[in-house]
């Protein structure tokens, strides 16, 4: 439970996230995303959420990004393509940035709950056991239903991956 460390790690994540969205090369972006996720995982550990941190490393950084890597390997990374991507990046970032700032402004305008003691420590680590008790206790139905998410994604991906011509109307 070290909030300061969590903050530092989170700041690192933020910086690397900024790099993710601004890199021209997909490979670079992917690498910076890995950094982001790992920093976040560090932050989670620091906040006492060890299960979450572990899952972040194993599943997110390990499994999900691995899939990305496979796909990214098929991408054209010629200098010309990079140049084009850079050119696209250079022009069109202003409106999104403005809107994003607009989203950010009210969120940043928030300060902590009024009247709360800003120095008092609070909170505690949540053990994996508690989490398990919760997930497989009251949340069991939700977990089951959440499996439907993967099921749906699986079926869609399977169907898309199958060879064949387009079907139906279009």
């Amino acid at each position: 439970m070290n909030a300061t460390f969590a903050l530092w790690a989170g700041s690192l994540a933020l910086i690397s996230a900024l790099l993710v969205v601004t890199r021209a090369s997909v490979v670079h972006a992917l690498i910076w995303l890995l950094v982001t996720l790992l920093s976040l995982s560090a932050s989670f550990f620091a906040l006492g959420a060890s299960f979450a941190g572990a899952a972040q490393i194993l599943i997110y950084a390990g499994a999900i990004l691995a899939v990305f890597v496979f796909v990214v390997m098929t991408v054209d990374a010629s200098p010309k393509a990079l140049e084009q991507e850079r050119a696209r990046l250079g022009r069109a970032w202003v409106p999104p940035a403005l809107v994003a700032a607009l989203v950010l402004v009210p969120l940043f305008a928030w300060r902590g709950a009024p009247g709360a003691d800003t120095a008092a420590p609070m909170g505690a680590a949540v053990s994996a056991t508690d989490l398990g008790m919760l997930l497989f206790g009251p949340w069991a139905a939700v977990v089951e239903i959440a499996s439907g998410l993967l099921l749906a994604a699986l079926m869609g991906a399977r169907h898309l991956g199958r060879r064949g011509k387009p079907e139906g109307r279009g």
Partner: protein
Amino acid sequence: MEVFGLVLTYNHLLLTIPSIALAGFVMLGLDPFRLRDFEVRALALIGGVGPLIPMLVFANACFHGQCTGMVPIFTLKVGESTVALALQMDPLAALVGLTVCVIGAAVILFSVAYMQGTALPDLRRFFALMHLFLAGMLTMVLAGDSIVLFLGWELMGLCSYLLIAYNTTSAEAIRAGRKAFIMTRVADAFLLAALLLLFLEANSVRLDHLIPAGVAAQDGMRPIIAALLLGGAIGKSAQVPMHTWLPSAMAGPTPVSALLHSATMVAAGAVLLMRFSPIIQAEPVVMAIGAGLGALTAIFGAAAALFQQDIKRLLAYSSISQIGYMMLAIGVGAPEAAAAHFVVHAIFKSLLFLSAGHITHHSPRGTDIMAMRGASQRNPLAFLAFSAGAASLAGLPVITGGWWSKEAMLGAVWGVEPALWTVAVLAAVLTAAYATRAVLIAAMPDPGSHDGHADHDDSHDTGYTLVPLAFLGFGALLAGGLVEPIMHLLGAHVPHAPLFTILVASIAPLVGVAIAFALAYVPALANGLQRARDIARRTRRRPRRQDKPAGFWVRIALAFSRGLRIDTLYQIVFVWPFVKLVRWLNGYGRGVADPAGNLPAMAALRLQRAITAPFAPDWIDRTWTAFGGRILALWAALRRLQTGRARDHGLYMAAGTAGLLLLAWGLTWH
């Protein structure tokens, strides 16, 4: 006997009088009855002469002091009021009704021969409408309540329209019919207003309730009602200033002019005022207006008649003038004298029309006054009849009916207002002048035909034409004997005028005759007339005058022959603005058709423009289509938002999120 809750009595036979004519209309007018030419004529006669028989019976009883009075037909309930429909037979109804029946029978008898050679459907239509008219007129005369009265009144107007436009291929006839219909409709509106106001006063439509209620009306109602009645009468009777339709109405067939536009329908206005005379007489101002207008009409009509170049138009102005006399008499409080003149006028005027029609029938000149020339040789009987009628019209002293009735009226006028009397006598001079002028022309030899009797067209000179002409001719001369009994019947006496007025009034026609001779035989005057005639004929097609200015006399002749151009004045004052308004409302030229109908569209457009002006400031349009177009332009602009690019869509979402967040921030601002 009781039918539909109505207890039928002997008196209900009164219904047969108009019903016979109506039955004739139905039989002739309904297509499914297949009729031959002979049958049509037979039916025409039955329907035309038929009403005379019951009328004689009832009128006879009435003349002997046993008037039937009110005969209720049926009663409607309108809320708290009852509408009791009735016919009535009183002395006035008997008198006028009998006159109408007699003239109607004579005219229809005449037309059976006159209309020979017409196509069968047209013949049927002609007689059907004549019958319908007769039914309408008799209904109006016998009406015992305002509804039935107005029914008859309006039926007459409708028949007048359809009969003037009888020749449906003649644009002039159609135009004349429409003009007559519209102008008399204005009068009808006055009458309707008067009758409805009386109804509100009396809470009943029966004339025997209406008239006392009208006399007793309070709150300034009575002058209004009286004025409205006068207005209705003036329009129907073609009195100045609503006289212009009658001369044009001569475009109809001659029997129509004889029956409708001289003897009966036109005089119905006078009859109406006689009927409602208690109300009129209670209002001196209205009386004075009526008398003044009557005198003006009398002299104006006579002056215009003097210079007419068309025999029928001459007679039309003559009718206007003569009815002016009746109005004058009513205006000075002598409706009985007017009634007498009504009878006499009906006789001699129908006689004049019929005989003139007979003379000019088949003439290549149509009804031009010059077509009368040679009548004394060609058609001596008709000429005699015409002369008898003209004499009566001129009011030759003692020997003609016209003198007696005119004398009765002049006597009444003298007693009230000598100035009006002077005007009336002057009009009498002019009357005699134009009547004599027509006879003189008829007496002239016809330059077109060299062998006198040879080509006189006797193909229809049968009993059908001769009987009416002879009957009416004797009537015109002898009707003077009727004047006193008529006035007596209506409860009045022939007024006793000073001797010198009688003398003056007797000399006046003779002066008129002298004037007529002067016009015919003094070269300067005759040439002036001829010149005016030439100008009128030349400028008839092209109204814009191209002639050199003519002399004073010619100009007077020309002006009067054109009826002082009052018609043109009305055209400019009433018709053109109306046409302009209608054209504007229908978007002729560059306007918007049906502007009010476009108001909602325009309002919607204004609203929408106010909203969308900042987005599309450069569009101006005025109709729905354009309104739709604006909305559609908005649509086209909006659909461009849907770029189809995921990034843009995401941007909108983010913007929406930002908006919501800002809203939340704002709402929680402390």
